[in-house]
């Protein structure tokens, strides 16, 4: 396959960025999208140019590092991570636009690499259960109904890639935040910190400069792990409940 790539190049956070156009040839349908970029980068290095910087690590769809907006879609046309997107989703001769996640809470580091530490700070605000090592009772001390365990798992699948923010027209992190809130709040182990967790995580999410939710549903459509939109509804409910309870 022969492709035209238009890629966002930006030297660092302060520098202005622009799209640059590259031609790549000899692309196999079996390549992953990132392997296609590897091919481009090998050529760029040999011609003395700087390769396109992009985040990637596990390349099996679980670490959440890869983060490209491809033709306007976070992670591209398939519902998966960029690393699991294969070139068979494109046609020979296509022009493909590649951009970074765009959000003020995700400033660009270089080219397609962004800083997602705001997500870490949301977790630090309460996305945990306080269980210091050594304090745990036997694992079977508290049975968890299977539907609750399954629901917790479904939300815990979030890989923190940020596609939800990238896809949201408002740059909102509600789906990310709600995934963690729901994972922990549905479990009996998470109950003691249920109220403070949701209040503090939402407050930090706001402080980090993410937009608000207008329930466009773009986040859930882009989510490679299928975190559902009702997750946000459930968090809203938790938040309202917590707001009543925490002052009682």
């Amino acid at each position, binding site marked *: 396959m022969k492709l035209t790539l238009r890629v966002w190049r930006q030297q660092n956070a302060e520098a202005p960025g622009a799209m640059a156009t590259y031609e790549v040839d000899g692309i196999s349908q079996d390549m992953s999208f990132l392997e296609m970029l590897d091919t481009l980068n090998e050529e760029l*290095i040999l011609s003395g140019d*700087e390769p396109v910087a992009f985040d990637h690590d596990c390349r099996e769809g679980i670490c959440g590092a890869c983060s490209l907006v491809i033709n306007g879609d976070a992670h591209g046309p398939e519902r998966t991570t960029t690393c699991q997107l294969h070139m068979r989703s494109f046609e020979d001769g296509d022009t493909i636009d590649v951009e970074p996640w765009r959000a003020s809470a995700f400033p660009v580091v270089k080219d397609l690499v962004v800083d997602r530490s705001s997500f870490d700070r949301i977790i630090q605000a309460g996305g945990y259960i306080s269980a210091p090592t050594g304090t745990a009772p036997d694992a079977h001390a508290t049975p968890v109904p299977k539907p609750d365990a399954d629901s917790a798992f479904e939300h815990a699948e979030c890989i923190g890639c940020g596609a939800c923010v990238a896809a949201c027209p408002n740059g909102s992190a509600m789906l990310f935040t709600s995934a963690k809130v729901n994972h922990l709040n549905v479990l009996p182990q998470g109950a003691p910190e249920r109220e403070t967790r949701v209040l503090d995580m939402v407050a930090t999410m706001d402080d980090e400069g993410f937009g608000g939710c207008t329930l466009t549903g773009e986040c859930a459509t882009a989510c490679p792990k299928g975190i559902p939109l009702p997750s946000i509804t459930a968090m809203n409910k938790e938040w309202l409940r917590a707001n009543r309870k925490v002052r009682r």
Partner: protein
Amino acid sequence: MSDYTNYRTGEPLVDAKAPTGPVAERWDTRRFQAKLVNPANRRKHTVIVVGTGLAGGSAGATLAEQGYHVVQFCFQDSPRRAHSVAAQGGINAAKNYRNDGDSVHRLFYDTVKGGDFRARESNVHRLAEISVEIIDQCVAQGVPFAREYGGLLDNRSFGGVQVSRTFYARGQTGQQLLLGAYQALSRQIAAGNVELHARTEMLDLIVVDGKARGIVARDLVTGKTDTYFADAVVLATGGYGNVFYLSTNAMNSNATAIWRAHRRGAYFANPCFTQIHPTCIPRTGDHQSKLTLMSESLRNDGRIWVPKAKGDDRPANRIPEDERDYYLERIYPAFGNLVPRDIASRAAKNVCDEGRGVGPGGQGVYLDFAEAIARMGRKKVEEKYGNLFDMYARITAENPYETPMRIYPAVHYTMGGLWVDYDLQTTIPGLFAIGEANFSDHGANRLGASALMQGLADGYFVLPSTINDYLARNPHTEEIDAGHPAVTEAVAETEDRLNLLLAVDGDRTPDSFHREIGELMWEFCGMARTEQGLREALDRIPRIREEFWRRIKVPGTGEQFNQSLEKANRVVDYLELAELMCLDALHRAESCGGHFREESQTPDGEAARRDEEFSYAAAWEFSATGDAPVLHKEDLVFEYVHPTQRSYA
């Protein structure tokens, strides 16, 4: 050709920290003997933890909970992305919730035997004891393990054992356990007890007066090289499987931290013990950048086969039942498809070498779920393995519910690593290695669902107890002077190396060298090794290294975000580590676990151990690049599990 193979054997190593007495009491004994640091004094101690995977994340969180000041590093943009996240199958624990005859002793026995009698009994027993606490800890943290309708935890069985002791969270157990540790760590970051440096990569170890006192690390965003000082340094930087270029490791997993520590005096043990995982998706072409694992749990219900006839290129569904060879079930009737990884991998290689492999290039075998779907129904199969099937379909564009999957072995885990004593301390006082970075618990082969167990055992329970002893005995009161010769030398060496990489301006990319060394290692130090092949590899590696320093091209500068520079610097270390791996493989003229020497096999082609000569851990001491290292042997004593030729028939 250098005299690299002309190594000297030095003083034997003795694990001075392991207590004697009944194996079941040793951990208690050690914990009692270990000195403690007064809780009020702990915040005066700084501990550097490099890496935020299961071992590093859990250690950082726990040390901070205990009151230590922790300074933690990861090269990823977030601690949550460490490659432990990719572990699929599960985590073992001797809970015996299934009442199927499991016990701490059985887990201990299985692990020593599975490791082909090349692990320490004391360490393995401790691991088995702690396994039980890990599950409790993780459940308390909210790790959503699979549960049954009664609300209790579900278990499954895993390769190499006959009990159901594996706890799991669908096919994402590693992710869920890592998020548990990450969340615990996040809590400590918020509390100010952990100072986290993300996108910061350790490039050297600082050893002052014979003790590990800090690291040199590069901020990957600004390119700035900086020094960080502490009272002890913990390496939790994972394994070195990426030496092979193609492996199931993450793209950025690397050996630099442990290799630089090795160069500073930490012995490297059993580097040739690498694990080839039997169930990976075969490669599709030269563009392949990494390999993807399919959880071994698939072997619980999938059946592995190849056509009986050579070169049978009919589609799988058109090959009748009586023309299929379910070779694992045939050769190992007792364990069938659940034999340990090394055995399953080698068997796959053998049938492919016979010309009976399937798929492109004949480098694959079938993993067939037709029988399982007929038995349990498609819905049940979907529930159990749905996400793995989806992943396979996405990568290969084939539907595994209808056509059998194709799998082939790939490098997955490295049992070797920095030599550590019972306290997980390396041969450099104050330098600890935990998780896959050390060599301790898996011997020559790791059983499925044991890596997560070991990483968390080391991080949550072992290190936080044993590091107290070191810190109590080494109360560093004076600050390290940044002008200390050991510090300036480490910084200068690092900066010189980076500058040289940028200055060569040759005509080959870092990746091309990585690929070259990887292919060489896969060919000569992969699934089957011979003296002749290893000698050839040892002959070629110095030449590749020489060519590297002549022809490497790294664009850009060192004062910026520069992924080519990161990569090139990692390849530098692969080019040295590869040599040591080959030497270790050459010197160990026996077959054991993941190390298969063709010269040492039984008449029916099984690995033949040579206990009289090789019942030791080989710990190598660095001398200089390209110069022969010094071998230190730590004799392994088996008081409880007596070495026998492993039999899974």
